[in-house]
C-alpha cells in the first residue's frame, strides 16, 4: 500500500519528462533503496543466520560448500561448486559454457541426493534442468587480475595491497543470475507465497551476496593449502571486495517489458528524493552528515576506474564538480543553512551540473534521511497486472495518449535514423540482441521495444478510422484490430504510473543501451560502472558491504559510496 504524500512532497516529485530520459537514467547511482542495501538491512533486522554446513574443497580449491540460511519464514540453502576451468574455456560472455564456479540457492535443507544432482547440473547452467526447489542459479569466474595475487599474499602472511583490491573490486565476477522459473527453477509465485522473499530481486541479490562469501571462503582455503600459516582476509580487505558482474543487453528489454515494476522502482526513489527536498531546514547533525558523505563520495569517485574514454571524462568532470561543491558546502557558508537547502541544491545541480553530479548528489540526499525514506523499499514491488477498460471511448483513449505519450507523438519515425535499431532474440542462447534495421536481417522478428513508435502508431490508426468506427469503444476496436492489444492495454494500465515509460526512442540511432543497463544496475545497487561498449558494462556489487558476520553491527548499513583510501 503506497502512502499518499503530502502536497508539499508531491509538488517536488520530478516530472517524468525530466527523470525518464535515457541519458539521465544512464547517470543514476545506487541509493539506500537499492536492492543490495535493502536486502542487507532485512538480513540484519530479521537476524538471518548463516551456518556453513559443508566445506569439501580439495587442495586446489575444487569441490563444494554449503551454507544453511535460517530466516524467520523458513530455511534456505546456498550451494557453491568450484571446478577446474581450462584457459581456452574462459570467456566473459553470456554465451560461455563453462565457469570457475556455479551456485544454487534452494528452498529448505539440501539433501545429499539434491546436492549430488546440483553438483552435476549447476556447473552446466543453461544446458541443465533444475527443480522447483531451486530458487536461483548463478555462475562466476575468478578475476585473473586479482584472485591468484590475493591468494599468494594471504599465503605469504600478509594482506594484498589495498589499492589493487580496490581497483579491481572483486575476486569473482558473475555473468548471469537466473531465477523465476528459468530452466525449471522455482516460479516467482513460490518465492512470494512462502514469504522468505518479498521484494523484487531479493533472492537474486542474496545469491550475489553469498557468492561474495563463497569467494572469501575459497580464497582463504586456497591460501591455507599453499601455506598453513596463511592469514585470513582482514575485515578491511573483505569490505573492499564485492562481486563483479558483466551485464549485457538483456536488462534493457526487461525495463520496457515490466513498466509497472519499473515505475515503482523509480517512484520509490523519486518520492524519497522529494521527501528530503521538502525539508525546511537542515539541522547541524544532518549538515555534518552531508559533508561526511560528500567527502566519502569524492574519495569513491577517485577510486572509480574505467578504460572507457567517455565514462572517464564524465568521472573527471564529476570529481571536479564534487570538489567545487565541497568548497561551497564548507561550514560558514550558506549552502546548507538556507531555507529548504536540499531542494535548492538539487535544483541548482539539475540546472547547472552534469547529470552524473546531479544524480550522485540526489543519491546522497536520500542517504541522509533513512528515517524518511527506508519505508519506501516496501513499495518497489508490483503485481504487474494489466487490464483493459473496454468501455473507454476511442476519443478518450486518444486524449490519454496525447496526455501521457506526448513525447512519443513528437518523434518523427519516418527517417531511417529514427528506426535505426531493432531488438531481437538471438538463436544463440536466446539472448536479446540489437540489430541495425537497414544493415542486418531479422527486423521482421523484432521485439516490442519501440513503445513510442507503437503508441504513436495506435494514435494514428485511430485517427485514420472511418468516422463511424471512431465512435466505437476500445472493446469493439480491439476485437477488430487485435494487433493493437498490447500497446493499448499498456497505455490504459499505466495511466496512473508516472515513471513507467522511458521518454526516448529506443529504436533511434542515438539510443545507447548502456544507459538503460546502468539504470537497472543502479537500482540493484551496482557501482563502479565500467562500460565496455555501448551495449555492455562491468560493475561491482556489494563493495563496501558488511560480511555475514558483521550484519547488524552498529554502522553496518553505512556503506554508500565506499571509499577505501586512507
Amino acid at each position, binding site marked *: 500500500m503506497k502512502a499518499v504524500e503530502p502536497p508539499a512532497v508531491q509538488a517536488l516529485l520530478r516530472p517524468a519528462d525530466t527523470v525518464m530520459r535515457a541519458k539521465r537514467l544512464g547517470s543514476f547511482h545506487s541509493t539506500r533503496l537499492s536492492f543490495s542495501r535493502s536486502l542487507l538491512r532485512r538480513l540484519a533486522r530479521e537476524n538471518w543466520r548463516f551456518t556453513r554446513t559443508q566445506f569439501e574443497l580439495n587442495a586446489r580449491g575444487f569441490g563444494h560448500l554449503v551454507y544453511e540460511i535460517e530466516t524467520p519464514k523458513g530455511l534456505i540453502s546456498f550451494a557453491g561448486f568450484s571446478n577446474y576451468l581450462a584457459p581456452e574455456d574462459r570467456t566473459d560472455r553470456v554465451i560461455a559454457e563453462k565457469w570457475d564456479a556455479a551456485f544454487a540457492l534452494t528452498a529448505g535443507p539440501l539433501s545429499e541426493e539434491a546436492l549430488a544432482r546440483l553438483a552435476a547440473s549447476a556447473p552446466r547452467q543453461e544446458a541443465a534442468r533444475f527443480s522447483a526447489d531451486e530458487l536461483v542459479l548463478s555462475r562466476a569466474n575468478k*578475476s585473473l587480475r586479482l584472485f591468484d595475487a590475493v591468494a599468494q599474499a594471504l599465503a605469504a602472511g600478509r594482506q594484498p595491497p589495498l589499492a589493487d583490491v580496490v581497483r579491481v573490486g572483486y575476486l569473482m565476477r558473475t555473468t548471469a543470475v537466473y531465477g523465476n522459473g528459468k530452466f525449471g527453477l522455482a516460479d516467482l509465485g513460490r518465492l512470494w507465497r512462502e514469504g522468505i522473499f518479498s521484494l523484487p530481486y531479493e533472492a537474486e541479490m542474496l545469491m550475489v551476496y553469498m557468492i561474495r562469501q563463497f569467494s572469501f571462503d575459497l580464497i582463504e582455503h586456497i591460501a591455507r593449502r599453499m601455506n598453513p600459516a596463511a592469514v585470513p582476509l582482514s575485515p578491511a580487505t573483505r569490505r573492499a571486495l564485492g562481486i563483479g558482474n558483466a551485464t549485457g543487453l538483456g536488462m534493457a528489454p526487461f525495463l520496457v517489458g515490466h513498466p509497472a515494476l519499473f515505475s515503482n522502482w523509480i517512484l520509490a526513489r523519486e518520492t524519497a528524493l522529494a521527501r528530503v527536498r521538502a525539508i525546511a531546514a537542515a539541522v547541524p547533525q544532518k549538515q555534518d552528515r552531508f559533508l561526511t558523505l560528500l567527502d566519502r563520495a569524492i574519495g569513491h569517485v577517485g577510486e572509480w576506474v574505467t578504460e572507457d574514454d567517455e565514462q572517464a571524462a564524465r568521472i573527471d568532470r564529476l570529481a571536479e564538480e564534487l570538489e567545487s561543491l565541497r568548497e561551497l558546502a564548507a561550514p560558514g557558508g550558506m549552502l546548507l543553512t538556507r531555507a529548504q537547502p536540499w531542494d535548492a541544491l538539487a535544483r541548482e545541480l539539475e540546472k547547472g551540473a552534469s547529470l552524473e553530479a546531479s544524480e550522485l548528489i540526489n543519491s546522497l540526499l536520500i542517504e541522509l534521511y533513512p528515517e524518511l525514506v527506508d519505508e519506501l523499499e516496501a513499495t518497489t514491488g508490483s503485481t504487474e497486472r494489466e487490464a483493459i477498460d473496454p468501455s473507454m471511448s476511442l476519443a478518450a483513449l486518444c486524449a490519454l495518449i496525447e496526455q501521457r505519450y506526448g513525447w512519443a507523438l513528437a518523434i518523427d519515425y519516418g527517417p531511417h535514423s529514427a528506426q535505426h535499431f531493432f531488438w531481437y532474440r538471438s538463436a544463440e542462447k536466446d539472448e536479446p540482441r540489437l540489430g541495425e534495421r537497414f544493415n542486418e536481417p531479422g527486423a521482421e522478428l523484432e521485439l516490442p521495444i519501440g513503445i513510442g513508435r507503437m503508441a504513436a502508431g495506435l494514435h494514428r490508426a485511430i485517427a485514420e478510422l472511418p468516422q463511424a468506427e471512431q465512435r466505437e469503444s476500445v472493446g469493439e476496436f480491439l476485437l477488430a484490430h487485435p494487433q493493437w492489444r498490447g500497446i493499448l492495454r499498456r497505455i490504459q494500465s499505466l495511466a496512473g504510473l508516472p515513471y513507467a515509460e522511458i521518454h526516448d526512442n529506443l529504436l533511434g540511432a542515438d539510443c545507447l543501451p548502456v544507459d538503460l543497463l546502468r539504470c537497472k544496475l543502479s537500482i540493484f545497487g551496482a557501482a563502479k560502472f565500467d562500460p565496455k561498449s555501448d551495449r555492455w558494462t562491468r560493475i561491482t556489487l556489494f563493495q563496501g558491504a558488511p560480511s555475514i558476520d558483521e550484519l547488524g553491527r552498529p554502522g553496518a548499513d553505512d556503506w554508500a559510496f565506499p571509499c577505501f583510501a586512507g
Partner: protein
Amino acid sequence: MRVSQFEIYRLIQRAMEALGAGYGVDRDAARAVAWLEARALPGLAAFDAELPRLEAGLPLARLQSRGESELVIEAGGSAIASAGAVLDLATTVGRLRLQGCTTPLFLIPGAADAAKNHPLSLAWQIAAGNVLLTFSGGPNLFLPPGTEVRSALLAEPQGDVVIERATAMPPELAPALTAETLAARLDESLNKGIAGAPALWRRLDAVAARIQVPASETSRERGAGGGDANT
C-alpha cells in the same frame, strides 16, 4: 520432465508470435495456457491440438450483432487469439454468445480474472451434456455426473458458448472441480513444477524457435557481453 509456469508462458508467447499473433494477444494466450497448466488443466494439449489449424492462420473474431443486452461474436475457430477481446466485451453486456468457438477452455483463465470485478459465468454444451463454469470465490466447474474433466474440457462445443452475468444452475450438473481444488493444484505445481510431455514440448518449441534471429557475425561481435577478457 518438469517445467515451470514461466517456461510454459514463454513457450506459448513465442509460439503465438511465430504464428502471427501481435504484441498483447501473444501474452494473453501464454498466460492462459500457463494458468491452465498450473492447475493441471490441459492447456498445452489443447494448444497442440489446435496447432495445425493455427498454422493456417489465427482466427479473427468478428462482431455479429449488438443488442441491448446481448452481443453475438463469431469466433471463427480457436479462442486462443480472441479470448481476451471476447471477455473484455463480455464485461460490458449482460450476455455474450460466442459462435464457432472450438476451444472454450482458453476462455477460462481470462474469465477467472474478469470475474473478480464482473460477475459472470461460462456455459456450453458437449456430447455428454452441459458444461458450466461459475467464478464465486474462484473457478468452479460443473459437469454431468461421471464426466471426465479433461475430455470434457478438450471436447469441441456443440453450439454457442454463452458468457453471462448470472446463470441458473442446470439441475443435472454436479461439481467437477472447485476453486479449492484448483488452488491446491496451483500450490502443488509451485512446489513440484508442472509435468511436461517431451514430444509435445519439442513440437511447440520448434514453432517458438521461428522468432529467433540467427546470429550474424556482426551480432556476435557486438552482442551482449561482447568482450572476451576475463580480468
